[in-house]
């Protein structure tokens, strides 16, 4: 059943953490299998639950998907490189 397969199919994604978020998770990156079509918001919820230290960063967290800023409703594509980081402070 195509519909059933789609519902259950999983995407491989890579998640990178920078600055305070790397400190809070203790990881530079992690590879995950997530449900196809998972939104950015759902990924943030999952990570908050997996890494409770992240919770207090989640309000101001920025997310990029494949090196472009992304937002809560966006679906994360197969093989995406997702990054989580605080507001930038370069210069």
């Amino acid at each position, binding site marked *: 059943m195509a519909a059933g397969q789609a519902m259950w199919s999983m995407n491989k994604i890579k998640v*990178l953490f920078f600055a305070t978020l790397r400190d809070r998770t203790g990881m530079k990156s992690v590879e995950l299998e997530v449900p196809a079509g998972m939104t950015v918001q759902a990924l943030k919820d999952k990570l908050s639950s997996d890494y409770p230290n992240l919770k207090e960063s989640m309000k*101001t967290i*920025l997310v990029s998907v494949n090196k472009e*800023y992304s937002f809560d409703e966006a679906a994360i594509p197969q093989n995406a490189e997702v*990054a989580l980081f605080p*507001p*930038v*402070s*370069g*210069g």
Partner: protein
Amino acid sequence: MMLKMQTIKFPTIFFITEEEINLNDLLAKITLPTTGAAAIFTGMVRGVTSRDDPHETAYLEYEAYVPMAEAKMRQVAEEIRSKWSSVEGIAIVQRVGKLYPQTPTVLIACTAAHRDTGVFEAARYGIDRLKEIVPIWKKEVGPDGEFWVEGEYIPKAGE
């Protein structure tokens, strides 16, 4: 007098580096035969800060999400070109790693034929935008310990 028409490709340079920022080299690379003016901004590590929260800084440790940072630097350059068509060359460079007071950390340089066609405003826009959208962070280390400096800007969709 006839001037030969030439297709000149305007140079756009952008990169993250751990090396010293060489202003002379970068300026030469964005200077064309038609260039008569350059506005260059550099930022440095302050050892002593007076404004807002006065403090001393031993060093800053910069990190970048390099491929995205370079993509966003390219985007800043494109934004500059779309706003100031007079701009000829653009260089955007961020140095990362452990950087001590009085060290240049970032450079934005724009060249143009003349100084009165927006070259100062273009450089100013460039550093403002870099600080908004280019994924770079700095950790400040000083007598009171170390802490990450967080920006304030939240990019919008399409940025």
